[in-house]
Structure formats: C-alpha cells, structure tokens
C-alpha cells in the first residue's frame, strides 16, 4: 500500500492516540466493564492498521520489522502461559486464580489486610488481560502488515 494524501496522514496522526487510549482502556477495565484483552487488542490493532493505511505499508514496515512483532507476540503468549504456570506453582492447579478469591490460598496478597476483595481486583484476570491484549495487538497488526506488504510488493513486481 502506498501512502495517502497529507490531509489523511495528519488526521490519522491526530486520531491515533485517542483510538489507542480507548483500546487500552478496554483492556485495562476488562474485568469490570464489557470488554477484555481480545476486544481492546482488536481496537488498538485497528488503530495501528489505520496508521498503516495512511502512511503506507512500506513506511510502517521500515519503522517496525515483522520479526520484532513476532518476538513481542511471543512475549505476550509466554506471559499468558507463564501466569497459568504461576497458578500451578502458587495455587497448585494450572490456571488457578492464585491472587484473588476467598477459597484459594493467596500467597501474594492477604485479601482481608489489603482490602483487595472490596475493590474486586479479580486476581490474575487483569494481568491475563494485559498479556492477551499485547498478544492480540501485535498478532493482528503483524497479520495485516505482512499481508498488505506482500500484496503491494507483488503489484510492483508485476508492473
């Protein structure tokens, strides 16, 4: 994809932070309001895709390599499965919610002392939301970027 006109690029640059913040908000509030890691991640990824459409896939790929995206995605995935493994270590069960909850022993926070249950931290759920959010942002963006770049380079070859 080649880059679009200056007007589009400016508007994109202005609206991008708002879309990004909104997406991050959806990720961060996943356990309290509708939304979560996947939905918020999709919003941020579409914001990134908007940048790519406006500035061209070549420009975007110069700024951020797909290999880096792939590594970042791995980090997100490892964080997610790592939280599940931490559940195995601290809670005794794979995927146990080892931070919050009354019936599961919580080694990190004492619920009563810190008043954690009052504000509904939901234990590991927000952390998992962050991990999944990172993974979804990077993953979806990598897919869009790679596909756009591949199709545009093909056109140039054909010409």
């Amino acid at each position: 994809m080649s880059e679009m006109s200056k007007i589009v690029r400016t508007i994109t640059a202005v609206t991008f932070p708002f879309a990004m913040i909104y997406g991050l908000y959806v990720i961060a509030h996943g356990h309290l309001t509708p939304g979560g890691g996947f939905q918020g991640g999709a919003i941020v990824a579409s914001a990134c895709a908007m940048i790519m459409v406006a500035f061209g896939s070549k420009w975007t790929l110069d700024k951020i390599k797909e290999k880096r995206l792939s590594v970042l995605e791995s980090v997100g995935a490892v964080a997610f499965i790592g939280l599940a493994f931490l559940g195995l270590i601290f809670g005794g069960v794979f995927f146990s919610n080892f931070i919050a909850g009354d019936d599961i022993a919580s080694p990190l926070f004492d619920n009563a002392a810190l008043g954690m249950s009052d504000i509904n931290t939901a234990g590991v759920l927000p952390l998992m939301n962050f991990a999944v959010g990172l993974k979804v942002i990077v993953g979806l963006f990598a897919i869009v970027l790679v596909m756009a770049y591949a199709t545009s380079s093909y056109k140039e070859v054909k010409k």
Partner: protein
Amino acid sequence: MIYNIPYIAVVCLILVGLYALIFKRNLIKMIIGVTLIESGVNLFLITLGYRKGSIAPIYTNSPGGIMALPVPQALTLTSIVIGVAVLALMLSLVIHIYRHYGTLDVKKVGRLKE
C-alpha cells in the same frame, strides 16, 4: 413458531454459506461462504444464552434482575477470534495461489487431480 425465528435466521445464514461453498467457483466467494457459516454458528451460540428480560451478566452498576447466560458469550468470543485466525490464514493462502496461477477460479486452479 414466532419464538423460533432466531433459529430460522441461523439456519438461513448457514444455508447461504453452504450455497456459496457449493456453487461458487471463485475462491474469495468460497471464503465468504465459510465466514457466513461461521457467523451463523456464532449467532446460534449467542441466541442460546438469552433469557427473556435479562441483562448482561455484569455486576458493575447492575440494576439487578435476571442475567443472561455468560458461557455462550464467552464461547462466541473464542469462536470469533478463531474465525479471524482462520480467515487470515485462508486469505494469505489465496493471495499465494493468485501469485502462482494468476486466477482465482477453482476450475483453473485445480491442477491437483484425483
């Protein structure tokens, strides 16, 4: 009968998808057929979770009352993400097929024979 209209809509979506899969010869249209079936199935899952007069199963500022079932919504969420993943892979394969053969017609692409 009137209460079964959502299910009939689901069946219609799935049938349209199957129609596209069976009768269309363009690969992109076949993919559209697959996504139609998928939306039908997702719609079916989400209709299973509705209770008459219920609210979303979220306690934040909840007015109270009966809540819709949370599990179908979670399943639908999973299914949608899986659908996106499958769609991405199928489209990238189609891009490659177009690179190799210069066409999207099933008949012309279909070099692999029985």
